[in-house]
């Protein structure tokens, strides 16, 4: 097996084992740690797909930011008391059957489609993802290429995303701060 493929399977295994751990683990803190493992596996896969900037953003935002949010929430809500509660929903068994069917039927179709598409459209040169032309000058590097595209072609969505994040931040503060009266 060639090295690239070997590493692909290794990272895929890390990602999938992490994802299964998130669903299976009883304690949320264990789920959170498995989620971290899955995020890091996905980041490694991004590097393999020559998306270095996305990999870095994945580590910073997911493994850094979102993970910390989860850990703080787990710390704030005292989950240890909930140990005695049942952890699976009553619909768990039909849901597992549905998941298996979904995986086999739809997944088979999707993977087949991807295979035939890959046969029709040959894989592009990875260099295309790391070069861009700005004012007639070729710029090297995935980060620069993505950055130019983000600020040149997708400037309005970028600004909207920043407003969205501001609204989300204010909303989170308001929701987290307000003391709600109990329904009794």
């Amino acid at each position, binding site marked *: 097996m*060639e090295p690239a*493929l070997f590493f692909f399977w290794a990272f*895929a295994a890390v990602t*999938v084992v992490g*994802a*299964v751990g998130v*669903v299976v*683990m009883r304690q*949320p803190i264990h*789920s*959170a740690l498995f989620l971290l493992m899955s995020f890091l596996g996905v980041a490694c*896969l*991004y590097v393999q*797909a020559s*998306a270095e*900037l*996305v990999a870095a*953003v*994945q580590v910073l*935002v*997911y493994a850094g930011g979102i993970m910390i*949010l*989860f850990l703080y*929430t*787990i710390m704030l*809500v005292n*989950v240890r008391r*909930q140990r005695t509660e*049942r*952890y*699976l*929903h009553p619909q*768990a068994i039909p*849901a*597992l059957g*549905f*998941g298996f069917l979904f*995986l086999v039927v739809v*997944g088979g179709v*999707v*993977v087949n489609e*991807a295979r035939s*598409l890959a046969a029709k459209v040959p894989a592009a040169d*990875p260099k*295309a*993802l790391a070069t*861009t032309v700005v004012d007639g000058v070729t710029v090297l590097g995935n980060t620069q290429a*993505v950055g130019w*595209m983000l600020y040149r*072609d*997708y400037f309005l969505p970028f600004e909207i*995303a920043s407003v*969205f994040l501001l609204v*989300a931040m204010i*909303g*989170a503060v308001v*929701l*987290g701060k307000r003391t709600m009266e*109990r*329904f009794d």
Partner: protein
Amino acid sequence: MITLAHFVGLSFVLFTIGVVGVLVRRNLLTVLMSIELMLNAVNINLVAFSRQLGDLTGQVFSIFVIAVAAGEAAIGLAIIISLYRLKSSVNLDAAAEMKG
């Protein structure tokens, strides 16, 4: 050689695990983590197609998806905290006033 089908298959497996996680778990925190898994699966797809087609748009889009995921996690966790204040529980069944 790693082909598009490898990435698409992996992303599909990850997405299915996320869907099953949302359906089977009762703990709201784990449900939110499963949603993050699904968003990750979508990102893998976007990056894989960007690699196949040599077009950076997929990578730019996946950065937007990550931004939305960050906002979603912040709001979702804040909602979980206020639910916990109200009900002293992070169980999905605790929020059953609307009988939905």
